[in-house]
């Protein structure tokens, strides 16, 4: 793979550290970006890729360490400053205005004008049309972005970056919503850009695809840069090994499974995609879960893991299919009804779905089980405090006390509060969606110990994950989900990393 190479990096990060509260997201990362080359960043979720990208794009500031641009040290005051200096980012989450036209989106904040007062719509539309044609997506620049397919929206996002004529272009999962032909177009555009000397930093979960476009490969793990190589010297196996490392395997050692009677049975469950009328988020899933089991639900984003868990928890309604708990059919019902039956969900997004930020640690913990502490119409403070304090001790929540504000806790401890809230409802089946998202390695191990302890008490623990090492090392069984179906099942110790990743569709397109 050839490209224009030159000896001096266009952008360089030196000894970057980033600390969020108690989480050390980046640890002394040195990173150089060469002009005219595609540098691909690999790393598991939480390895620090996105944080590093945000620092390079001026969205976050490093706690310590410096950035250099074209050989000069710089301090980026924000994304706009970075863009003005030639560093642009295409976000993983689309940052478009659905109510505005494609052209308006492209020119937001940098509108063209001839008289300094009114926007020069004609010039903007002409340039927008050019860019869209370059991406082989000849849309009308006046089309509102909201009516476009997700893939087209992603192309608009890419066009926006092209418009800025960046010298360094950061692409965070640019292909997640693109079809195969669209990916080819994108790769052609990337090649054109590198031929002009633009430096590309590229992140993707699709390993084969990323290796195809890569000139240079960098691997991050636990916030540190662990390996670097030329792309033609390495293969997927090499990357996976560096990404996961060996140390992770020793972290989680679950006891031998002792499974009991069947607790939860799901047959042919179908759930419509809340975002689309035709697609099925869960497409005919059947599974059996037994008392004392810890089961992982592995899959890529959009595989239907979250929807499956949320349907079991009563947040989404099934279109068809059957759920049985201890042999009894579970009727359709609210989240409250499912909690009463013993199905409790620890949601994926702690801040959005798990915590009430205006409430204390104790109030958050007791929220789902308040009914248990009501004596003669009033909530008994004593009963509540007793339950909260007992659970804080069991789950080792490190906080000043039940009255501490929830925001004062680290991510790991906040997650333990959400877990405690679920445990206080006395569940039969504990459903956890990405229970270790955004928490550090030590807290991860603690969360998994807690899950194993609950299973030992006879609970069923079903958790969704997108980290292979978690799926491989923690549970008794691994269910691999792809496109709304359970495509493979592995018993503990029978799967390899590659098998799991291939089954999920991660290493192929």
């Amino acid at each position, binding site marked *: 793979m050839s490209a224009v190479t030159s000896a001096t990096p266009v952008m360089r990060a030196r000894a970057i550290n980033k600390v969020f*509260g*108690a989480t050390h997201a980046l640890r002394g990362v040195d990173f150089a970006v060469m002009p005219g080359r595609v540098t691909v960043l690999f790393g598991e979720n939480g390895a620090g890729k996105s944080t590093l990208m945000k620092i390079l794009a001026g969205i976050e500031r490093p706690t310590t360490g410096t950035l250099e641009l074209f050989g000069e040290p710089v301090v980026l005051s924000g994304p706009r400053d970075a863009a003005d200096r030639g560093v642009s980012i295409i976000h993983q989450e689309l940052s478009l205005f659905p109510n505005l036209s494609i052209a308006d989106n492209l020119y937001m904040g940098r509108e063209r004008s001839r008289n300094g007062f009114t926007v020069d719509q004609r010039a903007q539309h002409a340039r927008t049309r050019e860019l869209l044609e370059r991406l082989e997506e000849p849309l009308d620049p006046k089309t509102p972005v909201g009516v476009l397919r997700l893939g087209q929206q992603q192309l608009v996002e890419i066009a926006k970056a092209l418009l800025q004529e960046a010298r360094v272009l950061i692409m965070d999962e640019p292909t997640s919503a693109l079809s195969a032909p669209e990916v080819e177009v994108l790769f052609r555009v990337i090649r054109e850009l590198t031929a002009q000397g633009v430096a590309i930093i590229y992140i993707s979960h699709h390993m084969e695809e990323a290796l195809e476009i890569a000139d240079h490969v960098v691997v991050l793990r636990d916030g540190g840069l662990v390996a670097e190589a030329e792309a033609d010297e390495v293969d997927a196996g090499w990357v996976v090994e560096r990404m996961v490392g060996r140390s992770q395997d020793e972290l989680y050692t679950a006891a031998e499974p002792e499974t009991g009677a069947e607790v939860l049975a799901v047959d042919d469950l179908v759930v419509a995609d809340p975002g689309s009328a035709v697609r099925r988020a869960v497409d005919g899933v059947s599974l059996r879960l037994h008392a004392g089991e810890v089961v992982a639900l592995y899959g890529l984003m959009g595989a239907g893991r979250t929807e499956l868990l949320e349907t079991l*928890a009563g*947040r989404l309604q099934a279109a068809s299919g059957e759920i049985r708990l201890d042999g009894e059919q579970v009727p359709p019902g*609210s*989240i*409250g009804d*499912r*909690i*009463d039956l013993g199905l409790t*969900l620890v*949601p994926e997004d702690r801040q*959005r*779905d*798990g*915590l*009430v*930020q*205006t*409430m204390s640690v104790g*109030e958050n913990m007791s*929220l*789902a089980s*308040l*009914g248990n502490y*009501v004596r003669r*119409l*009033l*909530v008994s403070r004593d009963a509540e405090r007793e339950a909260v304090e007992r659970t*804080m*001790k069991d789950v*080792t*929540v*490190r*906080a*000043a*006390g039940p009255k*501490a*504000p929830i*925001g*004062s*806790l*680290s991510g*790991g*401890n906040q997650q*333990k509060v959400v877990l405690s*809230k679920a445990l206080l*409802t006395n569940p039969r089946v504990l459903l956890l969606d990405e229970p270790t998202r955004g*928490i*550090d390695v*030590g*807290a991860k191990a*603690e969360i998994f110990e807690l899950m194993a302890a609950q299973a030992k008490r006879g609970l069923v623990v079903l958790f969704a994950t997108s980290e292979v090492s978690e799926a491989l090392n923690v549970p008794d069984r691994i269910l691999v989900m792809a496109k709304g179906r359970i495509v493979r099942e592995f018993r503990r110790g029978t799967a390899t990393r590659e098998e799991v990743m291939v089954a999920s569709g991660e290493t192929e397109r």
Partner: protein
Amino acid sequence: MSNDTSTTAGPPTGSEAVRDLPSTSEGRRLKVINLVLELRAFIALFVLIVVFSLLSDAYFTWDNLITMTRHVAINALLAIGMLMVILKGGIDLSVGSIVGLAGVVAGVLLEGLRVDVLNVVIYPPVWAVVVLALMVGAGVGWINGTLVSRFNVAPFIATLGMLYVARGVALLISDGKTYPNLGGSEQLGNTGFDWLGGGEILGIPVSILIMVLFAVAAIVLTRKTAFGRWIYAIGGNERAAELAGVPVRKAKTRVYMISGVCAAMAGLIIASELTSAAPQAGETFELNAIAAVVIGGTSLMGGRGNVRGALIGAFVIGFLADGLVILGVSTFWQIVIKGSVIILAVILDQSQQRIQGRAAQMAAAKSVTPSGPAPASA
């Protein structure tokens, strides 16, 4: 690991951080400022009373205090309902119209409800009149709540609509006229309505006692019941509340019903005080109620605030307005001053948040130095 639950994992935030401030001069200064801001509504009320007492002999007398508190009672009742709606993250603009509607309903019933089909006129007893008027208030609240929780209409819009609808219905029922005599008559056995607004128990006006009763009920409801906790949870994070199994829709609807009942009670008291009911009664009262809640330190975003604050807010507004009247300040200036006080209250609230933010930063800075409590790994 299990026995160190007493140490903080992250640096403290909010009032917690202020409490932990170091006893340096900077830390002490912040502590004092925070305390002053914390008690600002109390202090404002105290200062008001002192200043007006110095300026006028007539201000700080038992009779005047009782009179002013009677005025406050109306707004306080509305503010109690409004507080709960705002705590859950909504707003209720219809309360002023409910005041008018409840009065009109009482007027119709006390003057005799004509049923043409049976060719009779029904004169319900006063207790039934009160209950029916309160039920009308609850009914309007139920419509508000249903619009918000079932049809996902934004609370501002739903209650703005009901502001017009309820007022229009009051005008329709009364045909735009005032019911002049709510005293009832001996023969019909429906006298005594004027007791609500004019009666006394042990020298204290009934309207003030009703305010106290509602306030105590609201404090118990918000602080001691599961329902109260739900309101705070919904206002703080509705999605999280829903996932915790809180019956969000039901709770929301009930909150609007409570607000409607509070407003209807206020409407009855006004009608009783005047022994007449005008369909225009209560216009713009919703704004006074919102102002009281805001002065009481409640966040319009929901989830933060309390009944005590809303009550003090109502007292600040009422005692200020009456004081200005006693001093003979022009009505126009009164309006300007009231508006300024509301804005000042919000500015002070913001600066308190800032102080707590600064304290949290100081605590965070302290936690990375090795002398502080070791930052936990998780």
